[in-house]
Each structure stands twice: as C-alpha cells, then as structure tokens.
C-alpha cells in the first residue's frame, strides 16, 4: 500500500516485528494489533503479550486487485490465521495458491511486508508460511 508515513511505520514496529498483542488485565483476552482498550470488555488496562508463532489457517483469499507497490508479486495470498489465543490477518508467503488450504498449519516469519513507491519507505513485519511436513 502506498502512502505510509515514516513515524507511523516506526510506531508499529514492536507489534509488527515480534507479533506482540494487547492483553487485557480485566478479562484476560488477547487482541492484535494492540489497541488502547480491550475490544471485548472495553477495559483500558492493557499489557503486552507475544503471540504463539504457529497457527492454523482459518480462511484465505488470493488477491489480484492489489495496489501498485505489490503489483509485481501479485497475486498476494491474504490469510486469517488462528493462533489459539488470538487471530491475525497476515500475508501467506513462500507458497503458491495451489499449496494453500484451509486448516493447514502456518508459522510466522519476518519479511518485508510493504513498500511505498513514492518515498521508498520499506515496511518489515510478520508473514506466515506453511509449516514443512505438517
């Protein structure tokens, strides 16, 4: 996606690089990315918690209608990954659409997730890839 600001990318580095979720100290639930308040009970008492790095692919879409900056690697596989304690939307990498199926095990890897063609800004973060031999 185009139009990222450098400070915005910098602010999100911890949750994006280490898969850090928000954990509510009132109801105990986790959510990603971390919010100012708990999306479940509304409490603003939050701590950080790293998410498990292996999960199950609940659903996915193979996206062809991508913005300019990801055109060269289209189609992009976008997945809903269930990590047990929380779910995340992420890109599925190191796989072609035929390799991907609902229910498969996927693991987190650190990758380049976006770049801004206008400013040259590169955004790093987590993607998920199929677990080998799973």
């Amino acid at each position, binding site marked *: *996606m*185009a*139009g990222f600001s450098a400070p*915005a990318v910098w602010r*999100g580095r911890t949750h*994006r690089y280490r898969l850090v979720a928000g954990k509510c100290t009132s109801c105990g639930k986790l*959510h*990603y*990315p971390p*919010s100012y308040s708990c*999306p479940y009970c509304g409490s603003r008492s939050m701590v950080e918690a790293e998410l498990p790095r292996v999960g199950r692919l*609940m*659903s*996915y*879409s*193979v*996206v*062809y*209608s*991508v*913005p*300019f*900056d*990801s*055109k060269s690697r*289209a*189609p*992009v596989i*976008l*997945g*809903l990954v269930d990590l047990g304690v*929380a*779910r*995340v*939307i*992420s*890109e599925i990498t190191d796989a072609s*659409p035929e390799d991907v199926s*609902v229910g498969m095990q996927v693991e987190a890897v650190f990758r380049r*997730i*976006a770049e801004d063609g206008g400013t040259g800004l590169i*955004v790093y*973060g987590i993607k998920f890839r199929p677990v080998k031999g799973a």
Partner: protein
Amino acid sequence: MAYITGVSMVNVDRHYDKGVKRLAAEASSKALEDAEPDTLDYIIVSSSFTYASDVQLDIASYIASYTGFRGVRALAVESGEASGLAAVSVAKSLIDSGLASRVLVVGVDKLSEWPTWKVYGHFSKFYDVEGEGMYSIGMGGIAGILMRLYMETFKVDRLTLAYWPALMHSNAKLNPYAMLRFAITPEKVLEAPPVADPITLLDSFPLGDGAAALVIEGSGRGNVLAELVAVESATGYPSIALPEDPLRFESLERAYQRLTQRADIKEVDVIELHDSFTIMGILELESLRLAERGKAAEAVSRGYFSLGGEGPVVNPSGGLKARGHPIGATGVYQVVEVALQLGGEFPGLKVPDSRHGLAVSVNGSGSSAYIAYLRSVG
C-alpha cells in the same frame, strides 16, 4: 417527523468530463427544483474519496457556493463506505431537533479519476491501516476471506453464491441510473477473472462516478415522496480477526435492533443494501434475520428475494454490484431509490404497492453500520 420531498440521481458511470463539484451540483439542483434557495437551512455533503485522494478539503462549502447556495450552512460527513447514510442520519437529526426545517443531502464521489491500482490502495483504508490495512488487501481481500469462510462453514458452493450477482444484474437492466445494465448467468460469474479469489470480477462493484441528492423537510406539506421514519447506526469490531464469529456483523445487528426499538417495523417490502461484494449482501441479509444463517445464498438462488418472491425485494436498483458504488454517494442513492419505490416513482424495476423500505450501509467489514427505515405516506 421527517419527509423526503425531492430526490435526484446522476447515472453512475465514468464521468471524465465532470468533476466532483459539477456532479454534486447537477444532483442538488434537480433535487431542489421546487425549493427556494433562501429556505434551505443546511447542506450535508457525503464524500469519502475527496479526502482519501487529497482532492479538496471543506468540500461542502465549495459545493454549496458552486451550486448557487453561498451563505447556506454546509458541512461534510465522512464514514467510509457508509458515508451516505451517515449524512442522512445527520440531516435527520437536524430536522428532528428543530434546528433546520429543510436540509439537502448530497453524496458524491469519483473513482474514475485515478488509475485502478491507486483506487485499490484507497479501498484498503476502509480497513484498519494499523492492522490488516498494512498488507496488500487491495479490493476485496477481506471479503474474499469472509466468502471462503462462509463456504467452508456452511458448506455452500460457489455456484449458489453466484445467483446474487445474476439477480443484481437482472434487476439493474431497467434502472436508467445503473452502471451495468446487462444480464449475466451465475455460470458467467465463476468464469470471470478472479479479483480476490473466491471473489471474481462479477462479484465486485464496478468503479464508477456518481452523485445523488435528496431534500428532507420537517413538514409533510406539498410534494412528499416518503417519510424518513428513523435512521440508526452502530460501530463494530475494527477487524474480522477479533469477533468469535467473523460471519456476523455485530454493528449491523445492533443498528437494526436500535431501529426496531425506535420504530415499529411490522413488514418490509423493499430493501437497498450494501453488496460491495456478493458475500457482503449475503451476510447482511443474515444479520437482518431475513434468512437463516448459512441459508441466504440458497434463498436468493430460489428467488426468495426477487420481485414476486416470498421475501422483501432486495436491491431492485441492481445494488452496489450493478447500479454501482460511488463510495460517498452510495448511501444517498439507496435512500433515494427506496423513497422512489415507496412513492411509486422508481424508474427501474418497480416493487408494486411497497409501503415499508430499508436502506442498509456498512463500511469495510462492519466497522460501522447504518440503517434507515422509510414508510410511504397516505
């Protein structure tokens, strides 16, 4: 009480020869044909891409002066894809509070101004840009995830879901304001190029420009098309990764519940809802309890929501799928279309003797939802 006394639409298309102000002015002046400028209290503008694309700030004031209403009070409302109904809800509040007695609502947006890859980048901003919006979700990525999840969860096949766009195209054929006025078969939907698999091009709204306007008045004297009984709304989860069940739009369920507390809705004859993608239309029907969960697509395929079917007629305009979805204008088109149906004046597929209508709008995957209830007069 709030009444809709004037309406107008521009045909949804690629209007390369007209800018945002021009489209808004054409729709506004037609809707106001019977009104004197000095009796207009407010103009509420709904536009989303005008901001997303850095085109113009304070757009409401510039539309007001361009159209010939310098001096009127004007403000703009932005609520993503739900902007149009959000603007109608603000206008109705002004009428209900007594602060205004005649308000013009005009929705306008242009998608043909930029190359599609840029427009796709703007679409991703309907979603949380600190969350999934960081990724290349493009046009339909999140809806594609929902569609596959729906098919897996309820064991619904792709062909059954293709009856929705086929119905939308069939409905749009008679609508002179629709962008796509040709019939398609469900099989054609599956053969179309993928946009965000399992979503194909024919499950998706076309990229067009449009403007629609309506006049709301506190007094039911004169030329009244329909009564705007109530508009309700709710916010929802910021991502489909958060709710236990991503196939329920909590925001729409809550908005509908609020609406039924505010107005006694015994029956619904006609609905214009937000089918940006096939799966969105299906999930909205289920959120409104018009179909059992997992059964809406099958109900569509056997004609339940078609003209002459057992259920309410859904999207006789052709919906976002075939009428088009000029983002900030869409909700205004929907209310105009429902009002015209209830007044017996819709120029496309008519729902005979319709007395009760709904318009439904959702941003993204349900970050917000709006619903309006209109009733015929007399």
